[in-house]
């Protein structure tokens, strides 16, 4: 049963990733990315990381991608031409590089294949909110505070960059 779920989610994730890269319309790309993230959240659940699965939906699908959609709709970006409409050397090279990296990664995974363990039995406890929180607020307290600072800095930076400065005297249209 778990194998079937894994195959389904994996195919969904890869298909939506490919569709995201290929589709001409930016909004469609964003929606396929949302689908990809939801299927990844399902995979996290298979790995018994419940907290991260929910957080993945909450942060990525619920906040970041809504922001992306908001910007795309606001800018009203036009459709691009299809990737397959005309052959370019650039695409071919990019594809080759991608295949090369993928085969390297597969090779390195394959050579360690024997040494890797199964899902640890204690994992059913380790992925819960309590377990994650306990480690996060004791061992990783300093990084957690730094992340908070980083987020504050990012919000300020975004405001500074995106703020529309109205020059005095210029017509404000």
């Amino acid at each position, binding site marked *: 049963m778990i194998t079937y779920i894994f195959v389904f989610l994996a195919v969904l994730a890869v298909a939506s990733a490919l569709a995201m890269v290929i589709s001409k*319309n930016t*909004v*469609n790309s964003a*929606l396929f990315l*949302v689908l990809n993230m939801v299927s990844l959240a399902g995979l996290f659940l298979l790995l018994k990381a*419940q*907290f991260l699965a*929910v*957080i993945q*939906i*909450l942060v990525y*699908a*619920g*906040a970041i991608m*809504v*922001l992306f*959609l*908001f910007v795309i*709709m*606001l800018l009203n970006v036009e459709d691009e031409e299809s990737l397959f409409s005309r052959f370019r050397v650039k695409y071919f090279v990019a594809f080759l590089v991608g295949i090369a990296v993928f085969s390297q990664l597969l090779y390195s995974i394959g050579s360690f294949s024997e040494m890797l363990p199964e899902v640890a039995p204690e994992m*059913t406890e380790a992925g*819960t*909110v*309590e377990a994650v929180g306990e480690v996060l607020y004791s061992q990783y307290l300093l990084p957690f505070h730094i992340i908070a600072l980083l987020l504050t800095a990012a919000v300020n930076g975004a405001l500074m960059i995106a703020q529309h400065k109205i020059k005095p005297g210029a017509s404000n249209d």
Partner: protein
Amino acid sequence: MEPVTTTSYIVLGIALFMLLNSAALAVYAERRVAAFIQNRWGPNRVGPYGLFQPIADVVKLLLKEDVTPARGFKTIHAIAPMIPVFTALMTVAVIPFGDGLYATDINSGVLYILAINSLGVYGITLGGWASNSKYSLLGGLRAAAQMISYELPMGLAVASCILFAGSLSFIDVVNSQEVWWNVIRNPIAAVIFIVTAFAEANRTPFDLPEAEHELVGGYHTEYSSMKFGMFFLAEYMHVVVGSMLITTFFFGGYHLPFAGLWLPEMGVTAKAILDVSVFVLKTVFFAFLFIWVRWTIPRFKYNQVMKLGWKRLLPISIFNFLGLAVIVYFWHHYIA
């Protein structure tokens, strides 16, 4: 996580069925209550007291022509109305309706609710965008901005309830309110949660996304037939789900006031009947509150909505959360 039992399936089935029906009832109730408030009769022709009016509405919607904008995006236009319905239906999976009457007890149930809730914005935004109309697009963008802004105070208000429960599971949240309801321990967060629940359900005074005098019909301007019906259904399901969440988080769920102090031991069946009827009564009251407010308070302006969200509710909820955290910490370590 505990194994899924037959009880879970039965509870889930009944809950989904009742939620769908309650949306229809809410439509009827809205029209009758509106009529009562405005001193007129309301629908009273179809069936006794007009009770079959929702069925007539649905039949009318089904028989109408399904119009799709010619320059719009047909697939997204068709998918968009389903998303809010799905997200509303998914919430009942974790809400406890009585002692032991719940579909599933997820260890991070509260986060699950917030996550599902945050997905609901896609339906409205995409529906507005796919219609290829300026009114729809404006409505959709307004909805996105409004729902993102009000998620933050909502999350913080919920977090301050979690402080008392000490767990993200709904069962623990409800059981922690057996004696003291959260509305008594934490009234500020209760008010904030009710306001944000109104905003998340896009109800008056926060129905900016469909403000008819400026945006025609808002995000569902270009929708007709059953696609519009889905948006309509989703809005009333969100009213019901919002009432359930207000009940669960702040008004003791299925517990009577101070039930832990005076309620005698009862048999399983009697307790289950009492629990469910208490829960349903509270939910009905808050659904009535939703309708009552809609026909009493005028709509905000858009800048007022944003100002209320970011400058009032968010700071208040943050300080409320911090203060409560300090109090709970000292209570647990020095007094109790």
